[in-house]
């Protein structure tokens, strides 16, 4: 008897330990929270949603550094909590590869209340993973909750969304009317060209060198023009900021990679690798353009005009070199705010107006830009509260808080309705810009709030801070409009997006398509064009074996039926 009692108590103790361990492991982030505010407001009354701590995770690349140090107790977050009852804590590992992190989180089911992933169009590599997860029931259908929102309900209006977002990302026919993702950074209705920021992604040239050689960067239209200019620069013996000789053409500002802007005259199938030649869908490697671009890059390398490490240099070295003005020409840069800081030290000018392979003097941009997506995992309780919270952050009141901070303290509104930063914020921006995130958590708020965007209408300026620092942004606008480029806009389902529609071909073809850039680099460094041609021929054979012809046939059928159903040429840098 004693033995039995002993065993029984041992078993009970063991069970107790197990229960304690398991309960400690379970997440409490999804618990429904109290729906009465401290001041007595009930859910839905005067902006109150619920007393709830929401946890999110960012699957972007190394963006965690832009979050405030304290995401809950900074003045803006406190103000938002006062109004809505909600706090928002974003987790970020700062990993270099957001897609890998996202895949692992989905596979292990280690998901918080809400997730944010990179996805500027439906042809991105994140798309197949997100689609698979949505089809397998990993996310909540958000459609029923969109009806009860003020800003996000615009997504239900077919004219609000770009075609790619509507047909490919959010309202896909195979989702049966369900919506799993909210695509962010969608421009508001009735925005005009004046409300649009052009980032001028493409080739850039050091302004002082262009001036010294009396060259107008906008006049460089052909590959020969570019080559001749490069030769002139080399002969000019220009120096960098440290007095060392420069290299004429370097890598991308963010590190080495093949960028088609370097051989824009030959950029067939830009961004998708496929395009139509003589009415037939072809892969770029099957056209003469591939060999022409290889020939051009080999010519640059042989003449010592291109840094040999232009295709593999790490980002830190590349950025440092551009800060020192060590390259006369960058094959790819843009005017994101971090570049502006660099341009203040070493001014570069856009040289992105070369003809494209079609002979057009035009820069392609997406008709309406979307950028990231957020989604609510199926395990999250009360998802409607998070949708309401996102809707508040996307409202003008919410946007003002995460864009400009607290009124009176961080910004004032002048009589033209413009939002102007106070001296306190200006001092932070000028002296320690990296601390801005603790006063104005712009990135933190933008993750759920940056959509239905029209900064001109809401705050009287196209770019946040432009009216507060007019001198600084004069340079920005000068560069943005430099050379009065002509724009062409694309919208729709890209040739790359269709690959996930044919999983049997995708499995074999995708790895081969992914290796195209590597093949190009091998051909660039081949000892002559005969060897380069052989490398390309081998690649063509690989494409064929992997089913490229079947895929081309599939695209051809779509294209023949409705040419607007497939977008081949987009604004990606390759």
């Amino acid at each position, binding site marked *: 008897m004693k033995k039995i009692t002993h065993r029984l108590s041992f078993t009970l103790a063991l069970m107790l330990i197990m229960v304690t361990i398991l309960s400690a492991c379970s997440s409490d982030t999804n618990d429904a929270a109290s729906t009465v505010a401290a001041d007595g407001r009930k859910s839905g009354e005067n902006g109150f949603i619920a007393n709830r701590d929401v946890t999110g995770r960012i699957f972007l690349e190394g963006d965690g550094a832009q979050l405030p140090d304290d995401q809950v107790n900074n003045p803006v977050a406190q103000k938002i909590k006062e109004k809505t009852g909600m706090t928002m804590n974003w987790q970020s590992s700062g990993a270099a*590869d957001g*897609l*890998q992190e996202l*895949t*692992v989180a*989905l*596979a292990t*089911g280690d998901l918080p209340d809400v997730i944010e992933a990179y996805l500027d169009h439906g042809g991105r*590599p994140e798309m*197949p*993973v997100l689609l*698979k*997860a949505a089809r*397998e*029931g*990993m996310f909540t259908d958000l459609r029923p909750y969109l009806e009860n929102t003020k800003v996000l309900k615009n997504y239900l209006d077919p004219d609000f969304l770009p075609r790619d977002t509507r047909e490919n990302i959010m309202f896909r026919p195979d989702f049966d009317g369900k919506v799993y993702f909210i695509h962010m950074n969608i421009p508001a209705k009735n925005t005009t060209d004046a409300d649009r920021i052009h980032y001028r992604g493409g080739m850039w040239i050091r302004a002082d060198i262009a001036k010294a050689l009396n060259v107008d960067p906008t006049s460089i239209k052909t590959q020969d023009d570019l080559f001749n200019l490069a030769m002139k620069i080399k002969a000019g013996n220009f120096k960098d900021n440290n007095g060392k000789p420069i290299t004429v053409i370097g890598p991308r500002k963010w590190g080495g990679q*093949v960028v088609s802007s370097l051989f824009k005259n030959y950029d067939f199938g830009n961004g998708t690798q496929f395009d139509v030649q003589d009415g037939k869908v072809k892969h770029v490697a099957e056209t003469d353009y591939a060999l022409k671009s290889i020939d051009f890059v080999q010519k640059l390398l042989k003449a010592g005009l291109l840094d*040999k*490490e232009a*295709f*593999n240099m*790490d980002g830190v070295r590349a950025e440092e070199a551009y800060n020192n003005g060590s390259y006369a020409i960058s094959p790819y840069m843009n005017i994101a705010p971090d570049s502006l800081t660099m341009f203040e030290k070493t001014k570069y000018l856009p040289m992105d107006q070369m003809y494209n392979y079609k002979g057009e003097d035009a820069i392609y941009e997406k008709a309406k830009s979307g950028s990231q997506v957020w989604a609510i995992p199926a395990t999250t309780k009360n998802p409607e509260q998070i949708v309401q919270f996102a809707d508040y952050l996307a409202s003008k009141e919410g946007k003002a808080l995460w864009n400009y901070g607290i009124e009176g303290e961080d910004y004032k509104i002048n009589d033209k309705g413009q939002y102007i930063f106070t001296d306190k914020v200006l001092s932070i921006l000028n002296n320690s810009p990296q601390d801005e995130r603790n006063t104005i958590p712009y990135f933190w708020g933008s993750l759920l709030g940056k959509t239905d965007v029209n900064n001109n209408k809401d705050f009287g300026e196209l770019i946040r801070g432009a009216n507060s620092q007019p001198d600084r942004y004069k340079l920005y606008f000068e560069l943005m409009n430099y050379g009065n480029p002509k724009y062409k806009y694309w919208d729709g389902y890209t040739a790359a997006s269709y690959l996930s529609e044919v999983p049997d071909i995708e*499995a*074999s073809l*995708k*790895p*081969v398509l992914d*290796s195209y*850039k*590597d*093949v*190009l*680099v*091998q051909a660039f*460094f081949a000892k002559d064009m005969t060897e380069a041609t052989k490398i390309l021929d081998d690649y063509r*054979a*690989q494409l064929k*074996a*992997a089913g490229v012809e079947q895929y081309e046939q599939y695209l051809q059928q779509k294209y023949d039926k409705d040419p607007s159903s497939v977008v081949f040429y987009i604004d990606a840098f390759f």
Partner: protein
Amino acid sequence: MQAELDSMSKKRSKAKKAASAGLWKTIVANRYLYLMLLPCLIFFAIFSYLPMAGLVMAFKEFRFNGGMFGGPWVGMRYFKLFFSYPDAAQLIANTFIVGFLKIIVYFPFPILLALMLNELRTKWFKSMTQTISYLPYFLSWVVVAAFTTKVLAPDDGIFNQFVAALGGDGSTFYMMDGHYFYLIMFLTYVWKNIGWGSIIYLASMASIDPTLYEAAEMDGASKWRKIWHITLPSIRPTIAILFILDIGSLLTTGYEQNWLLRTAGNSDFSDILDTYVLRVGMMQGQYGYGAAVGLLQGLVGLILVIVTNYLVKRFSKNESSLW
């Protein structure tokens, strides 16, 4: 007859009981030693045996909502897909070459270093050399790959400048030319691991009976003779066992070094099964496919271990094999 059988089976069960009682007695008597072994057993159970259940993924379609076992069976689909991949043969060949370099060619290097260190008589010089030689082991491959790339950079890299100073061309882009890849990979691997690898041999050499050397000396044996006839035979079991253990990972020599030293130009040489599994399996979420390729690597490793063990057993007359 029946009675005989009964008595035999009784005897057998008695013997079994006695044996099991003996085992328990041994365990109880050596409980502290067994307790020290426990973490090791737990480690292997959790990190080596438990994950074997995941091999089932090689035959199932992985679903995010179904976990490892929830998806439908797909048979040999992933294996067929892998062998129909145009680069599959090259990946396998590269993996064998890298494995051969890292395991077979590299194998004598730590032994040579250990022999050299063992012959040093100045104590401070010996410890200093030893410390310096195994410090690189603690550097991450990220660091090693970054400075290898810098040292070998075309034109302004230290190595190219040295070549130029000697009247050479000095513009070779070693990292972009696949023909140099295996040499770079092998030299960095030796540099990083040789010191650490030599420790176990040094420990083994320390346990050799010094009287053997004294006796050999009295017989007039030279240093080389002592190394050849005393040191090497004495550490032979260590060498054999380490070799058998290493050979199992011929196809799984780790992805970090190749991943980090890889450039587009040397990818035809640097892409191996490990990097392929990482890129396709992990990064693109094709876990089933990744598991199938991983399973192939594991199977080849297992076969190699069994064959090597058999050969070692035969040639060493049962002295140095694992089982």
